[in-house]
């Protein structure tokens, strides 16, 4: 059964450093998303991506965040200068025409 994969599973970084979180969406899906979940809080939308451009972004997704689909399979989230409050689980998701979003296992980002 096709699934969304994410790497790394856990990333530890120092405040101010850049991190890149990677995702491989389900192969025939066209819509890609990043969500995050701070420990003990709800899952929050960050950004959606379709046809090689951002289709929607939340207030959280400020200038320090960027997304890219560098090739036909990968989808990345870059945080340019990490802050302590960026510590969270980051989930990638993808969907086809049905609108049902399938999530990856997540990357736990810890900013020290």
């Amino acid at each position: 059964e096709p699934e969304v994969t994410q790497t790394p599973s856990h990333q530890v970084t120092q405040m101010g450093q850049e991190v890149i979180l990677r995702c491989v969406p389900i192969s025939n899906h066209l819509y890609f998303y990043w969500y995050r979940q701070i420990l003990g809080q709800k899952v929050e939308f960050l950004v959606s991506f379709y046809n090689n451009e951002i289709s929607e972004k939340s207030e959280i997704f400020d200038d320090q965040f960027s997304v890219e689909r560098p090739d036909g399979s990968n989808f990345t989230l870059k945080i340019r200068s990490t802050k302590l409050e960026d510590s969270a689980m980051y989930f990638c998701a993808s969907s086809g025409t049905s609108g049902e979003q399938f999530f990856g296992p997540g990357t736990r980002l810890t900013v020290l």
Partner: protein
Amino acid sequence: EDQVTQSPEALRLQEGESSSLNCSYTVSGLRGLFWYRQDPGKGPEFLFTLYSAGEEKEKERLKATLTKKESFLHITAPKPEDSATYLCAVLRHGGATNKLIFGTGTLLAVQP
């Protein structure tokens, strides 16, 4: 403002003791309501999509129903392996948005 509220926050059941989880929503035009299961440290696992009031879907011991204001996830004769956090999310009509708006979840513990 779009809002999703889940209750109870936590629920403890004995194995075989049936119950229901509630998801009430306020959204400007519902395009779909989604139920996910989330195990600790993992990504949300898709369970059901409901699109219109009166719709019902079933999967093993789970049954999801939808009205114009809320959705219920009924769990019949639960087993310990059903222990998880159950998340509800809505997708609203309007524009190009595919943003899921999540509730805070119900933490279900099923004791043998």
